[in-house]
C-alpha cells in the first residue's frame, strides 16, 4: 500500500469517531469540522515523517481540539489544553492522550453524529447527502455525481440542511437507553435508504452509484462495531452484504437489469455472501427477529441456492409473511406474492395482489409482477397492458428495458406458430 493511500484510509476510517468527539466538545458542527480538517492537514504533514500514531482517532481529536482552541485563544485569553508542539514531538504521544479520552464516549459520539443527519424535517435524500458529507467525508462533488445533480445544487442542499440542523436543539446530553435505541433505529433506517439509493438507482447509470452501496456497508459495519450485540444491526449489515454480493450479476453489458433467476451466479461475490450468512447465524442466537433480519434471511435463501430451481420459495413465502406481520405494507405483500406464485401458482398470487392495485397504482414493480403473472396464465392482452403501465412508471432506462424484454417474449410466445 502506498503511504498516502494508507494515510487517506486511516483518516477516513477515524473520521466518524474523531468528528463525533470534536462535535461533543465544541457543540457546533462547523467548528468541529474545521478542527477535524486542521488535524487532517497536520496528519498529512507529520505522519509520513514520524509514522502513523497507534490510535489515529485519538490523535485527530487531540490535535483538532488544540488547533480549534488556539483559534479561540487568539481571540481571547484562553488556557491551552496541552502544549501542541510538545504533544506532537513526544515519543509516544498516544499513551498520554488516550488516557485523556474516554473510549466509551465514542459509541454515543458516533451515533449522535449520524443521528443529527436524520433530522425528521429533512427529506430522506438530504439526510443521506448530509451523512455522506459529514460522516463519510465524501466531497460535495462525489455526492453530487452519485445523486446526478450539479455540484452547486448539491452544495446548496447540504448547506441548507446543515443550517436546519444548527437551528434545532442538538442532542448533546448522554442519551437514555430508550433514546439510544431510537437513535440507532433512525440511523439504521437512513443507512438502509442510502444503500437503496445506490442499489435501486432511481435514475442514471447504476455503476456510478455502486459507491453509495459500499459506503452504506461501511456505515453498517461501523454501527455493528459500536453495537456488537444488536441482532437487527447484524441483520442490516447481512442484508446489505447479501444484496451487494450480486452487484456484478444484476446488470448485463448494456445496463439492462438481469432478473435473479437469470443471473450468472458465478458472478456473485462469495466472500460477501459468506460474511452475510455468518452475521445471520450470529443474529439468530438472540431470538429477537426484526425486519432487517427477516429480509436478510430471505436474501440468504437466494444466496444459498446454487441454481434458481433450488430456491426454497416456501420458506421465502413464510419469511415475507412474518415480515408482513411486523410491518404490514403492500410492497411486502407484493414480494410475498412472488413466492406464492412459485409455490402455489400464478392464479393464487394474482388473487393476493388484486387488492394492492389501488395502494400500488404508481408502483413500477406492481405492474411488472402483475404482467408476468398474467402472461404465465396466458392472459396476453391484460399482461401487455400491465407491462405498458410498468414502462410508463419506470425510473431508469434499465427498468424500462427489462420490461420491454418481457413484452418481446410475450409477443413471440403469443404469436400463432
Amino acid at each position, binding site marked *: *500500500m502506498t503511504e498516502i493511500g494508507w494515510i487517506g*484510509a486511516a483518516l477516513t*476510517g477515524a473520521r466518524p469517531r474523531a468528528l463525533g468527539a470534536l462535535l461533543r466538545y465544541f457543540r457546533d458542527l462547523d467548528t468541529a469540522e474545521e478542527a477535524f480538517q486542521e488535524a487532517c492537514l497536520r496528519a498529512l504533514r507529520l505522519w509520513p515523517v514520524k509514522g502513523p500514531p497507534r490510535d489515529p482517532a485519538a490523535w485527530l481529536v487531540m490535535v483538532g481540539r488544540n488547533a480549534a482552541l488556539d483559534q479561540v485563544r487568539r481571540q481571547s485569553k484562553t488556557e491551552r489544553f496541552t502544549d501542541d508542539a510538545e504533544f506532537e514531538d513526544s515519543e509516544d504521544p498516544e499513551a498520554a492522550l488516550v488516557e485523556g479520552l474516554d473510549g466509551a464516549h465514542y459509541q454515543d459520539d458516533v451515533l449522535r453524529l449520524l443521528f443529527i443527519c436524520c433530522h425528521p424535517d429533512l427529506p430522506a435524500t438530504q439526510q443521506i447527502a448530509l451523512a455522506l458529507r459529514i460522516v463519510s467525508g465524501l466531497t460535495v462533488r462525489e455526492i453530487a455525481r452519485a445523486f446526478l445533480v450539479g455540484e452547486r445544487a448539491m452544495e446548496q442542499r447540504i448547506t441548507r440542511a446543515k443550517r436546519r440542523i444548527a437551528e434545532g436543539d442538538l442532542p448533546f446530553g448522554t442519551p437514555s437507553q430508550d433514546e439510544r435505541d431510537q437513535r440507532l433505529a433512525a440511523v439504521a433506517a437512513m443507512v438502509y435508504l442510502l444503500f437503496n439509493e445506490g442499489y435501486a438507482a432511481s435514475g442514471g447509470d447504476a455503476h456510478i452509484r455502486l459507491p453509495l452501496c459500499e459506503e452504506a456497508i461501511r456505515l453498517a459495519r461501523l454501527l455493528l*462495531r459500536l453495537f456488537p450485540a444488536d441482532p437487527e444491526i447484524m441483520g442490516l449489515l447481512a442484508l446489505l452484504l447479501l444484496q451487494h454480493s450480486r452487484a456484478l450479476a444484476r446488470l448485463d453489458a448494456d445496463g439492462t437489469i438481469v432478473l435473479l433467476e437469470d443471473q450468472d451466479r458465478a458472478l456473485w461475490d462469495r466472500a460477501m455472501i459468506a*460474511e452475510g450468512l*455468518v452475521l445471520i447465524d450470529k443474529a439468530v442466537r438472540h431470538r429477537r427477529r426484526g425486519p432487517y433480519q427477516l429480509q436478510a434471511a430471505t436474501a440468504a435463501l437466494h444466496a444459498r441456492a446454487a441454481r434458481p430451481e433450488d430456491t426454497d420459495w416456501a420458506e421465502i413465502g413464510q419469511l415475507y409473511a412474518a415480515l408482513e406481520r411486523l410491518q404490514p405494507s403492500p410492497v411486502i405483500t407484493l414480494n410475498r406474492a412472488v413466492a406464492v406464485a412459485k409455490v402455489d401458482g400464478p392464479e393464487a398470487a394474482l388473487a393476493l395482489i388484486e387488492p394492492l392495485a389501488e395502494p400500488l397504482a404508481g408502483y413500477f414493480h406492481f405492474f411488472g409482477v402483475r404482467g408476468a403473472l398474467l402472461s404465465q396464465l396466458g392472459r396476453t392482452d391484460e399482461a401487455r397492458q400491465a407491462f405498458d403501465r410498468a414502462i410508463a412508471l419506470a425510473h431508469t432506462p434499465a427498468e424500462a428495458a427489462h420490461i420491454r424484454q418481457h413484452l418481446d417474449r410475450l409477443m413471440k410466445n403469443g404469436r400463432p406458430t
Partner: protein
Amino acid sequence: MLYAVLIYDDEEAIGALPKAEFDRLIANHEGVQEKLAADGKLGPVARLMPTTAATTLRQGGETVLLDGPFAETKEQLLGFYIVDCASLEEATEAAGQIGRACNARALEIRPVQLYHPGIGLK
C-alpha cells in the same frame, strides 16, 4: 521450525481503502505466497473476516457467548501465515516480506509449539 506470522492492522482503515488499493494489497499477498512456496516455506494461510463477524466464548465461572472479538484493540488480528523457517532470523525475513506486501501495522512472529495439519480442509 514452524512460525505463525500474525498480521495486525486497523480494520477501519483497511475498510476505507479504495478498491484499487485493496486489490493491490491482495495481489501483493499472492506474490509473497508464491515466493514463500517456491522457497519451500509456505504453510497454511488464512484471512479472517472483520471482527464484527466474530463471537467470543468467555470461560471461567459462568461461560458466556459474547458478540465481537476477544479484545477491543487499536489493531485487530486480520489473518496469519504459517511458515517453515530454520531460525528466527529467517522467520523475521519471511515476516518482513509479508509486511512489505501489506504494509500492516504489526506482525507478530510466534513459534509454533504443536502443529497438526488437520484433515486437509478445502
